[in-house]
């Protein structure tokens, strides 16, 4: 871990703190109301606000998880920095693609 990775790791963590809290609130709300898929999608479809919220969340999570996984790999696996970085990078891209697809799935009108 160096200063560059550290800054991105901590920055995305700080960005996600309020996003996580909001997400937990959403979970509590959705479960209390017993929302169905139709209910949820009716709220999210065509919503720029939800798209921005979860879009930002996906980007931040993908960056944060990539750096975290890279750290774990360098310390707990036989991989060296380069290999760990590549493997983590592949994971991060996968996470971003799946996440972007999920956001599109619930936000597209």
């Amino acid at each position, binding site marked *: *871990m160096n*200063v560059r990775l550290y800054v991105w790791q901590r920055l995305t963590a700080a960005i996600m703190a309020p996003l996580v809290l909001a997400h937990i609130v959403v979970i509590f709300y959705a479960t209390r109301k017993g929302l169905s898929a139709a209910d949820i999608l009716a709220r999210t479809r065509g919503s720029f606000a939800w798209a921005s919220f979860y879009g930002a969340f996906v980007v931040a999570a993908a960056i944060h998880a990539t750096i975290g996984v890279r750290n774990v790999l360098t*310390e707990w696996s036989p991989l060296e920095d380069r290999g760990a970085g590549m493997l983590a990078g592949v994971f991060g891209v996968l996470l971003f693609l799946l996440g972007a697809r999920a956001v599109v799935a619930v936000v597209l009108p």
Partner: protein
Amino acid sequence: MSDSRSELTVALWRGAQQGRYETYKVPLRENQTVLDVVTFVQRHLDPTLSYRFACRVGMCGSCAMTVNGRPRWTCRTHVSRVAARGQLKIGPLENLPVIKDLATDMRPFFEKWQQAKGAFAPSRTRSDDFAPIRPDSPARMAADAAIECINCAICYAACDTVRWNSDYLGPAALNRAWTLVNDVRDGANSERLQAVAATGGCHACHSHQSCQELCPQQLNPTASIAGLKRRTTWAYLKGEI
């Protein structure tokens, strides 16, 4: 103690990186330190035992070993505090190559010290005036809080990030770098911040705080390293490193 014991069962590491624990019986005395126990074995039971000590009074840090799983100064560890069931297991400090028995090769520890730029770089000559430093200035207080390190390597031995990450400079080296970052007389701060901001520098620390818990001088390398994180982040964002 339950069954009034008159002796201790002591397992000592014999060998180098490869080796085994060998068991010795040592008379139990009042006011006995772990260093007393090791010394007894070497003097009366097995003269081939290798170990390090110097001052015997908790000033030099030479006698640090792993005692029942924790790195400690053996001269300042009373047997009654650690040998609950009359058992002691003593090995060399972890995270360092073993030369023989209880003596480790301290070179990697000091090499990382140098790598972290843990040496003072003067910015004045003897013909210049003294640098006026108020002892209650924030920078000097920060440096003073961390300055009493005697390089015993207990924090280095206790640190799991050192164990897992061979690049990691370690708590002692970074703690020293922090004292110098706070020394207004020092002239090598730019290089030092670069050194501790690189791979294996302060950012590798996960704040386990094993260093702070076990430091016999009650130093807090975790806090020093947090200070370095702030300094280097700031320097990075300003484009200085």
